[in-house]
């Protein structure tokens, strides 16, 4: 035990001797978190809408003012020429174009169908679909009003309607900060631990100082533990500072147990650091390690469901996430912080994370050779 404590002390000295790294491991994640969290949102507002109004009737004007009043659209271009409108779409001046043909007024009052044309810039398929859904919603409402006006004779019951109300649970205002903050924090903490822990070990190999440790009676598990614990502590401190800052600046909620959250984070870090040390045992230069670490980190992060929904991934990707510690952590964080889930709700994810940590750690211990 005392050996490990000495080794840990040595590691801390080594980390903080580099003044830049010593400051950066705390400053970089906190600054990036504060700066980046408010930036990230999928909320769609101010869709730039171009309008070609060939009808110029009270009906078409009514439709346009409804679109403006819906709060989703900003009418940026108003023209009679199709060519000009397409040009605007091409140059990103508007995101979608509504083409109202001649005769909208006549046709609707006489009960005939009148097609209107909508063109959407669909390079970003999600935004395109959502914008289209909003426009369609306004059109639907408009249609119902026309039907009601025209059909004065029919009673209401002859035109049954099902109304939908939406409720967003656990995050009523769809605040993206609540969702992004824990994720971004976890990414930064992981990046730091993953990079520095591995680089530290490889650096000892590269400069030859690992020989000095290999000739001592230090056991393999002691060495690996001592390499892990400092970064685990740094990671947890980073996390605590980040959460306090998040609470102060963005008022993020903590509905569940904070202790459980830190316990999960500690297990997660053990797993990730174990993997880092495992990789570092078969890289001979820092450059090699860095590229492999970069590769794994990017995969873990982008497949964890933090930026894109897990439900949109193909099945094989979801299967892969069984061995992705980041995916479990994201899920656990959101469950604890936003839903207030108790241990029983996330037991499965908890145990999976624990198994991963044990596996990665023992791999690192086994693969580490004291002989050169």
């Amino acid at each position, binding site marked *: 035990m005392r050996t490990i404590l000495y080794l840990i002390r040595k590691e801390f000295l080594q980390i903080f001797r580099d003044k830049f790294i010593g400051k950066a491991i705390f400053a970089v994640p906190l600054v990036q978190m504060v700066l980046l969290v408010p930036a990230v949102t999928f909320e769609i507002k101010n869709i730039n809408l171009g309008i070609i109004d060939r009808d110029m009737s009270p009906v078409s004007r009514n439709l346009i003012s409804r679109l403006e009043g819906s709060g989703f659209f900003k009418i940026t271009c108003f023209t009679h020429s199709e060519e000009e409108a397409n040009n605007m779409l091409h140059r990103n001046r508007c995101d979608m174009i509504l083409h109202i043909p001649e005769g909208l007024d006549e046709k609707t009052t006489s009960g005939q169908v009148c097609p209107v044309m909508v063109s959407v810039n669909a390079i970003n398929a999600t935004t395109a679909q959502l914008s289209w859904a909003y426009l369609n919603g306004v059109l639907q409402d408009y249609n119902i009003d026309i039907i009601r006006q025209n059909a004065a004779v029919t009673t209401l019951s002859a035109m*049954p309607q099902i109304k939908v109300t939406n409720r967003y649970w656990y995050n009523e205002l769809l605040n993206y900060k609540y969702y992004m903050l824990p994720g971004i924090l976890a990414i930064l903490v992981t990046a730091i631990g993953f990079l520095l822990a591995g680089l530290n070990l490889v650096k000892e190999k590269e400069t030859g100082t690992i020989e000095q440790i290999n000739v001592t009676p230090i056991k393999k598990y002691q060495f690996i533990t001592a390499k892990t614990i400092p970064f685990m502590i740094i990671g947890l401190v980073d996390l605590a500072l980040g959460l306090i800052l998040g609470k102060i600046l963005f008022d993020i909620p903590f509905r569940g147990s904070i202790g459980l959250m830190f316990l999960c984070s500690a297990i997660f870090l053990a797993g990730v650091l174990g993997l880092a040390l495992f990789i570092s045992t078969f890289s001979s230069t820092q450059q090699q390690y860095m590229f492999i670490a970069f590769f794994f980190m990017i995969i873990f992060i982008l497949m964890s469901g933090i930026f894109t929904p897990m439900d949109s991934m193909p099945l094989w990707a979801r299967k892969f996430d069984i061995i992705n510690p980041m995916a479990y952590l994201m899920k656990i964080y959101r469950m604890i912080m936003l839903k207030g889930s108790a241990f029983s709700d996330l037991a499965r994810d908890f145990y999976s994370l624990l198994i991963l940590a044990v596996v990665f750690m023992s791999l690192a211990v086994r693969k580490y050779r004291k002989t050169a």
Partner: protein
Amino acid sequence: MKRFLGFVKKEFLHIFRDYRTLVILFGLPVAEILIFGFVISMEIKDAGIAFLDLSKDDVTQKISDKMCSSDFFRKVEDLESYHDIDMIMKTGRAKAVIVFGEDFGRDLISRGEADMSIITDASEPNTATLITNYASAIVSDFNMEYREKNSGAKILVSPEVRMFYNPELRSHFMFVPGVITFILILICALMTSITITREKEFGTMEVLLVSPLKPSHIILGKVMPYFILSFINVLLILLLSRIAFDLPVKGSLFLLLAESMLYILMSLSLGILISTVSKTMQQAIFISLVGLMLPTILLSGFIFPLENMPRVYDVVAYFLPPRYYITIIKNIMIKGTGFFSVWKETLILTIMTLFFIVLSVRKFKIRLQ
């Protein structure tokens, strides 16, 4: 000149000697483009939803069938009471619960109007919005059919939609350019910053500095091999996105390659700048990886559209190079526009490159400390 060529040769030898790094250098972008092209998407498929149907009539049955027969949703459970909603959402098994009240069927017949609600788990706001939209669209379709059947009232203003540039609404069109941009800047910045700090850390920089090579030659010689390797990488990636994702190059291929060279050059000079401010490899790696990774993912328009961001960030993003390259390749590849639509972005990237180069030449120390 001969001296300089000798130096470049030395750099190439350095790179080829470490074959493992070389394999990663080409394998990494290829693997990541392949993985993320398939994985990163925003469409919801087979999201688990639960139903709380207290009315249990013909209409509610039809609506739930209609929802489950779509590709978006998969029924995980029929709930019995309001209390169950919280239970199933907390475990995360269902992302949404569709609720029909007790009076649903009666209201629909007697009043001609009935309420249902879609409760979504908004701890993932994006998924929640998408699910709500899909589900509402299904109900609205159902409404239309139902109304037409019962009263013959037809929709009069019927919209026809055309999705420009990406008629099949594939998310590759958005994400493949993003992945290319992201990977190129990180790899280029990492490689150059490491190769220079490595010489510093091992003390071999001293050998170079006392040699008759000028500092500008040293830097140029360091960057040249990586420029060539990165360009090969670009060709590989473009070929791959053509074969695997059917991503078109509608505009001029020549222009696209020229712009890519500019972007590589910009990333490499950023790497040089990083190397001049860091003393050890660890510092260089820290700055280029931890410093660049998240801003590049989040503030380039790769996943999150820049237009939606608060105003301030739109301004911040003006200072980050990736957004310009993303715009350029999207314009050239997908929209097929020419140089005139991207001249502004090109100009900005050029200015940034020059800025980085000038700054690093001024910061480059020819004396040891």
